[in-house]
Every structure is written in structure tokens, then in C-alpha cells.
């Protein structure tokens, strides 16, 4: 394919993309002359250039479209729905021919007669309107015969045709002679096919010019070149670090190296910026899809888009295209109800689908929300039990949020029953997998009857991931933090008892549950004598890749680092334990461990209750396994505080506890905190001003309360207790470490009442507290 054709393809593609956007906009604002002008220009440019390149089929089709658009531009036609549908079909037709050209370097054999006939039919209303009924247009060639009596409407689309070979062009190269021709149109034919700026009056022409200058100031760059630049910049950063170190003693060099430092940082940022693209690149595809789908499904939908300028690395943008498309499809198919149902539910018959993009720190958030029916949580619950994803007993305790997470389970959502009744979930696991592949997260939020919001959290760049640097076999390795759930340190003295063995399988009791251990050194260097666990410090990184939970034992931990992932050569990828390599801040090379592959290699199986575990891995879904509690001791009794309510644990001197009347309070960060002392901790220490007490600061509704305790013991998952006989869940107590433990009733902590003889200055605060 020659350069000219390739350029033509790229340009036409862009033109058609623009046309698509304009067409969907046009449906909203059918009178917008600017939009029509834009659309006309896109088609016109294609037609003009094809004449040059000799793509007859493309030209014929473009020409038919152009005629129709010409009438539209002259307001001889109105942009009603059938017309826009026709134009969209034209768009698709042009696209498919372009695709064939790209693939095969010729236009292919397809027949566009039906499409063209349709486009001509759409012109009929305008022709009927015209004063002098020249219907020859529909008839094709004959139309070219009487150029002079042609009404002005016919003249305008003509100039572009000047470039086209005559046989099929109804308006021949005579426009300049037409007496009705406006002055501007007269000069236009001169530049001929090369000039994409069709004569359209002053305003549009100016816009064409600005568009042209924008094109001049931008440049197409191969992505691989950008990748290379990014690599080199990374290299420069490392070299800079070394230079900075080497020259730190020399005052003469300080200025120079500081300058190098600055320039490098700037350069790095610029190169990263060069890879960024606005999300509008994918958002702009949505209006068309929403239009087509909502028509096909009989929905009335308004699409609202926000934050189009938010930028994202190009490769990531590509990666989220499919999940996003899927999410939008889901919203239309299952979220937004048919108009009648909406009216019946007291809603506006027109549903709203909202796409929102925004940057939050080092992530970009992309939200797809609808005001549809939402997900029927109960149905999800039933279905989950039916499918055996969770047990009935467990399902009872799952909150809405946890239940919603179930729709991400692989296979769960593909079942027709869930799709039909719950109205959501086809292939949601695919959405999640795709997003997680690029280090992102998916969250879902749904209110029955109110709508659903799907939130994708995407990291800004793909190449940089947070990782914990661990040490083993005298080397550093990077452990991606995505799969890491916690770290446990076992000193050499503890190791003998803490690590238990079944035959030669090491295990560790993590909060009462056995966790299989994998010693990294033994895995990496089999057949070599390694120090026994009791001869060294052991760090267990508890990993949970794809529901395979295990502890990876390493010799040491270093700081977490944001690492730049570099690919490994095929021969090292084949080892199967490493997903890449990276250069650490100290210029040391480190291999990146692949937790999933390690689990496989070490033979760690999926846990039995795998689906539920997969849910556990979800952020914010920790509560699935029952609430977690902070276990505290107060005055000889143990009590539990729901961990989600705990804000802070503060150690304060006893003398900081003050009293309003008889009630102990703590001035905590300028706010007055009522301190609950049902355990008698304060009373026990009275008269000992040096004593320290521990106050657990909790959230209760929208106020904060403190609980005085003598010790904080542990964090543990609570089990529910059922009253014998009734099988009713009992409130106020939980099973913690196999002991029935009372849960502190935070709501029962009385608010500070205004009557409590409070010092006047504190009155205001009390009000805010209460």
C-alpha cells in the first residue's frame, strides 16, 4: 500500500469518527447547521480523495451520501430519525469499504446498490418541495443534462464533484457556470479535489482553517517509538542518580547536577504525557452504540458524558475499551427499563446513562451509571445459593454490598436465570478480569429501583506497579502488592513452634487457620541445603492470588517501591515464576515474582469454599466472612468492638480525662469525646495521675465516642451465634476465638446532653457532637 493510500485511510477514519459523533449529536439538535456542515465535510473529503486514488465503489457511495447531505445542509430536508439512520448506514458502508481497502488494498466486490437507493429515497421529500421538479437525480446520469434550470439546492453539492470522473457524477464539472452559484462557491472548484474545505460560507470555512492549523501542529508518532523513549528516559533517571551521588562532594558540580536532575524530571514527565490520550477517544464511540442499542431494545436513553478530557496512557485506554463497552451494553440491556415500565415506576420515561471520568490521585476513575432498575439483590442471593457459590447459612448474613460482589464470580453471571431476573451481570467477571489485568479495580453499587453504578479504577500508567521488595537467596525480588494481604514476622526463636509440619509440608496457624507455607529459597534453589527456619528470621507474605491462599516465606523485607516493569526474554519467561524484571532505586536488578505461578508450582490448591474466598479478596468486602472485631479487655472482661467502627486507638495519660458532671470526656483533636467506662477502667486507676489508659475512638452514626479499655488484645473475625431452638441470630454477642464475647453497644453511649453542667465554652461543641 502506498503512502498516499495509507494517509487517506487514516484521515478518512478520523473523518468518519467525527461524523459519527456529529450524527448522534445531530439527533439532539437537528437544526444545528455547524454539525451538518461537519458531517458534509467528512463525506466530501472522502469523496474528493477517492477520485484521486481511483476507488470507484467508495466514491459512488460517498457521492450518494453527499447529495443527501447537501440537501440537508440547505435545509431542504430535516434531520429526522430515518434520515440519521440512513446516514449512519452510509457511515458503516464507508467504513467497511475502508476496512477492505486496508486489508486487501482494493475495494472488494460488495454491492452498495441497496444502500445508495435508500439514500436516494431519503432525498425525495426535498425534491418534492423544490420549485422546479427535477427528479432526474434519483435517475442518476440524466440529472446532469439540464444544469441551468437546476434549483440552487442542487448546485451546492456540485463543486466537490468537479474532481470526480464524470460517468456517475450527476452534477458535472459545470458549477462555476451556474448562475445561481454564490460567489464563494465560484472560487472553490479551483483547488479541486485536494481542497477539503468545501464552499460553505464564512463561518465554517474559518473553522476548517483552525482545524487545519491544529493538524499542522500535531504529528503522528509510532507508539513503539514512544515506548523506546520512555525506556531511555528511565535509563537517564538511573544515570542521573549515579551522577548525583558521584558529584555530591564537589561543590562546582552541584549546580550542574541539579540542573541535570531538573531537566531529567521534566523530560520524563513530557514523555509520559506524550503517551496520554483523553478518554474522549473511547467515550466518543458510545453515543452511537447507545443510540443503536436503545433503538433495538426499545429504550429511551439520554447519554450524559463528563470528564472527557481526563487522560490515560494509550495502552490502558485500549485495554478498558471492551470492559467499558460491555458495561454500557449491560446498563442499556438490563439496567434501564423500557419506557412503559419506567412510567409505571414513576420515573421519567427517558433513562439517563452517565459516563464519567475523573482523575483521583494516581488513578483514573471511570463510572458508568444508570438510573434503571438496579440489581435485585435478593435474586442474586437466591441464585448464588442455587449455584452453590455460597451456602444458605452464609447467604443470610451477607449484606447487599457483599451480595453485589457475587455477580463478578466467574460463571455466575452467564446463567440466563440471573440475567433475566436480576437484570444484570452478563460477563461481569470478564469485565473484572480485564480491568484487573491492567492493575485496576472494579466496584459496583446498586440500589434496587434507583439504578446502578459501575466504577472502574484504572492506574495512570501500566508500566508502574506498587511492589514490596523482599529478599531471599541473597537477592532482591519484587512482590506485586495486588496479591499481598498481610505480612507476618516469625523470629528464629519462634520458628520452631510457630511453623508446624505435616510430613514435609510446612504450615502456619494464621488466626487459628492453617496456612500452607512456601519457602522461596527452597523453591528457587532446590537441591541446595538451606538454613532451617529456626536459624534465621522468617517473614511470611500472605498471598491470595486467584483464591489460592498461601504464605511465601522470605528472609527479609525491604521498602515497598513503585517499580517499572520490564519484560523478560522468552527463555526466562519459560521458568514460569517471574513475570518480569525491574531496576530498583539503588540500581539493583530485581526479578518480579508471579504469586499465581508460585502457588501453582508449589501445588497450592484453591480453597474449598473458593467462590466465597474470591469475594474476600475484593476491597471493602472483608466483611463477607463475618464482621471483624477488635478484641479488648476492660476491667477483667473481654469485649468486642466492630473493627469497621474503630477510628483510632489512643494511649493517653489519665489526667487528660476530664469530667462534665460525672461523665468522663476526652478533648480529642479539639473535639469533645464522651468516654464510655462501663469496664471501670478509669475508676480503678483513680488517684494515680501518672497512669496511662487506652481509649478506643469509635464512630457511632455521625458522632465519635471513646471507650476506655485496659488492653487491646487482637483483631479477629466474629462468628454469629444462633439462639438455640429459634435459630435466630442473637444480638450483642459474637463468637470470637471460640469464646462468646459481648459486643460493645456504641449506640448505647449516651450523647453529651446540654444539661450536663458543661462549661459554657464547650456548649457549642456539644451541640455539634450531639
Amino acid at each position, binding site marked *: 500500500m502506498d503512502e498516499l493510500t495509507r494517509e487517506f485511510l487514516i484521515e478518512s477514519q478520523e473523518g468518519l469518527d467525527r461524523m459519527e459523533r456529529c450524527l448522534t449529536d445531530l439527533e439532539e439538535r437537528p437544526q444545528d447547521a455547524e454539525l451538518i456542515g461537519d458531517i458534509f465535510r467528512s463525506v466530501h473529503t472522502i469523496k474528493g480523495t477517492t477520485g484521486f486514488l481511483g476507488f470507484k465503489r467508495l466514491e459512488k457511495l460517498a457521492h450518494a451520501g453527499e447529495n443527501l447531505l447537501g440537501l440537508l445542509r440547505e435545509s431542504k430536508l430535516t434531520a429526522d430519525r430515518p434520515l440519521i439512520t440512513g446516514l449512519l448506514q452510509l457511515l458503516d458502508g464507508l467504513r467497511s469499504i475502508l476496512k477492505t481497502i486496508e486489508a486487501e488494498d482494493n475495494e472488494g466486490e460488495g454491492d452498495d446498490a441497496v444502500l445508495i437507493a435508500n439514500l436516494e429515497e431519503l432525498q425525495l421529500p426535498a425534491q418534492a418541495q423544490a420549485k422546479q421538479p427535477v427528479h432526474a437525480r434519483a435517475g442518476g446520469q440524466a440529472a446532469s443534462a439540464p444544469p441551468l434550470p437546476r434549483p440552487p439546492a442542487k448546485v451546492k453539492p456540485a463543486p466537490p464533484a468537479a474532481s470526480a470522473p464524470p460517468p456517475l457524477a450527476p452534477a458535472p464539472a459545470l458549477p462555476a457556470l451556474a448562475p445561481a452559484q454564490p460567489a464563494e462557491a465560484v472560487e472553490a472548484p479551483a483547488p479541486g479535489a485536494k481542497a477539503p474545505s468545501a464552499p460553505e460560507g464564512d463561518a465554517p470555512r474559518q473553522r476548517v482553517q483552525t482545524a487545519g492549523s491544529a493538524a499542522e501542529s500535531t504529528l503522528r508518532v509510532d507508539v513503539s517509538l514512544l515506548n523506546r523513549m520512555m525506556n531511555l528516559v528511565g535509563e537517564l533517571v538511573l544515570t542521573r542518580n549515579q551522577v548525583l551521588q558521584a558529584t555530591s562532594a564537589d561543590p562546582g558540580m552541584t549546580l550542574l547536577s541539579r540542573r541535570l536532575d531538573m531537566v531529567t524530571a521534566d523530560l520524563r514527565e513530557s514523555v509520559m504525557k506524550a503517551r496520554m490520550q483523553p478518554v474522549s477517544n473511547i467515550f466518543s464511540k458510545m453515543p452511537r452504540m447507545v443510540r443503536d442499542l436503545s433503538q433495538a431494545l426499545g429504550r429511551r436513553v439520554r447519554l450524559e458524558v463528563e470528564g472527557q478530557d481526563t487522560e490515560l496512557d494509550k495502552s490502558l485506554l485500549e485495554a478498558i475499551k471492551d470492559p467499558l463497552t460491555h458495561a454500557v451494553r449491560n446498563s442499556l440491556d438490563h439496567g434501564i427499563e423500557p419506557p412503559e415500565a419506567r412510567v409505571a415506576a414513576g420515573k421519567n420515561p427517558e433513562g439517563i446513562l452517565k459516563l464519567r471520568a475523573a482523575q483521583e490521585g494516581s488513578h483514573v476513575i471511570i463510572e458508568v451509571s444508570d438510573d434503571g432498575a438496579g440489581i435485585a439483590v435478593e435474586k442474586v442471593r437466591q441464585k448464588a445459593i442455587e449455584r452453590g457459590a455460597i451456602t444458605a447459612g452464609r447467604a443470610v448474613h451477607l449484606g447487599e454490598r457483599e451480595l453485589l460482589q457475587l455477580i463478578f464470580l466467574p460463571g455466575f453471571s452467564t446463567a440466563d436465570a440471573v440475567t433475566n431476573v436480576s437484570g444484570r451481570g452478563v460477563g461481569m467477571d470478564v469485565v473484572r478480569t480485564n480491568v484487573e489485568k491492567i492493575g485496576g479495580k472494579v466496584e459496583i453499587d446498586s440500589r434496587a429501583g434507583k439504578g446502578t453504578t459501575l466504577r472502574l479504577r484504572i492506574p495512570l500508567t501500566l508500566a508502574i506497579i506498587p511492589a514490596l521488595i523482599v529478599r531471599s*537467596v541473597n*537477592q532482591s525480588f519484587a512482590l506485586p502488592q495486588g496479591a499481598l494481604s498481610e505480612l507476618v514476622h516469625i523470629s528464629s526463636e519462634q520458628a520452631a513452634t510457630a511453623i508446624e509440619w505435616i510430613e514435609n509440608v510446612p504450615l502456619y496457624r494464621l488466626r487459628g487457620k492453617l496456612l500452607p507455607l512456601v519457602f522461596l529459597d527452597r523453591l528457587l*534453589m532446590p537441591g541446595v541445603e538451606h538454613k532451617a527456619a529456626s536459624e534465621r528470621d522468617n517473614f511470611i507474605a500472605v498471598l491470595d492470588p486467584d483464591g489460592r491462599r498461601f504464605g511465601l516465606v522470605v528472609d527479609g523485607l525491604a521498602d515497598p517501591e513503585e517499580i517499572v516493569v520490564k519484560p523478560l526474554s*522468552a527463555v*526466562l519467561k519459560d*521458568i514460569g515464576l517471574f513475570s518480569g524484571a525491574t531496576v530498583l532505586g539503588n540500581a539493583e536488578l530485581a526479578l518480579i515474582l508471579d504469586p499465581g505461578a508460585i502457588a501453582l508450582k508449589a501445588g497450592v490448591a484453591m480453597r474449598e469454599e473458593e467462590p466465597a474466598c474470591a469475594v474476600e479478596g475484593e476491597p471493602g468486602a472483608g466483611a463477607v466472612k463475618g464482621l471483624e472485631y477488635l478484641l479488648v479487655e476492660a476491667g477483667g472482661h473481654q469485649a468486642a468492638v466492630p473493627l469497621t467502627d474503630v477510628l483510632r486507638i489512643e494511649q493517653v495519660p489519665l489526667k487528660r480525662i476530664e469530667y462534665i458532671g460525672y461523665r468522663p470526656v476526652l478533648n480529642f483533636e479539639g473535639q469533645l469525646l464522651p468516654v464510655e467506662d462501663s469496664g471501670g477502667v478509669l475508676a480503678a486507676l483513680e488517684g494515680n495521675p501518672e497512669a496511662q489508659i487506652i481509649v478506643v475512638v469509635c464512630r457511632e452514626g455521625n458522632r465519635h465516642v471513646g471507650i476506655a479499655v485496659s488492653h487491646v488484645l487482637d483483631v479477629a473475625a466474629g462468628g454469629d451465634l444462633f439462639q438455640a431452638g429459634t435459630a435466630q441470630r442473637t444480638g450483642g454477642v459474637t463468637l470470637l476465638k471460640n469464646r462468646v464475647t459481648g459486643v460493645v453497644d456504641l449506640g448505647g453511649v449516651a450523647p453529651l446532653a446540654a444539661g450536663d453542667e458543661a462549661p459554657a465554652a464547650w456548649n457549642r461543641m456539644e451541640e455539634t457532637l450531639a
Partner: protein
Amino acid sequence: MSTATVALHGKEKAAATLVEMCTVRLGNTVFGVPITHILEIVGAARPRPVPLAPVFVGGLVHYRGDVLTTVSLRQLLGLPPREGRQDLLVLENPGGIFGLLVDSVGEVLTVSSADHEPNPSILNERRRALFAGAYKLKDSLLVMLDPEQLEPMRLSAGRAA
């Protein structure tokens, strides 16, 4: 020395072509690598070992923003490992770039194809695949290495076969 050889042969056989070779030393043997394949020579490289990698892999080195897999010529030829630093040749092949670890890099020689002889038949099979004959120098032999045969992927395929 080399120019003398070339001059001599240049007079005798006008058809002979001249090639530039970078000499590398490994133990007592001098090997030659065509300089057209060499991107860069890095002195005193410190490759990072890769656990569980095939034996011929010398480790990873950081090269211009990329992480490069290296082939250790010593380990490839089954020679005992050597203490201390090694030099690194960065080689380019159609399949990509990789590193070759050698004891030391010497000079660049211009040799004439007229002095080339194929591998002797008594050379063991493994070496016959890696070497591309030898050039007769005035007082020694320059054993040719074939960069394409040294590709890590090809080596691992060869081992598996």
C-alpha cells in the same frame, strides 16, 4: 600483525573479502565475533543471576533501560565458572538483542576470508554447532562464533531437543 596478513593475501587472492572481527578471550582460546552483530561492549558487567534458569544463562543485566538476558560463554561450553568480573558484548540478531559474557574483550582484527577454514570434524558436536570455523592467524587460530546460534531461545530449544 593482521594488516600484514591481509596485505599478503590481498596480493595473492584478489577475490578474498575482508571482514572485521572483535576478538574475545575465554581461558586460553581466542574467539571472534563479527563486529556487524555487536551493538556495544560493556566492560566489567555484573549480571544478576536468575534462579532456575537454564545453565547457559549468565544472568540479567540492565542495558539502556531494558533488561537483557545474557549467555555465559563459559557455562555454555561447560567450562568452570570464573571468579571476578567479566566483559559483556551486546549482540543484535533479527530475534532481538542479548548479552554474551566472556572473560575479556580484545581488539578488532581485519581478517580475510581466504584464511577461513570450516570446523574440524573431530570437534564435538555441541561446539560444532556454535562455532563457525576458524581463521588462521599468523601464530594462532581465531575461532569464529556464530551470533545467531548463541541466541538464548535457540540455545534452550537445542537443549530441549
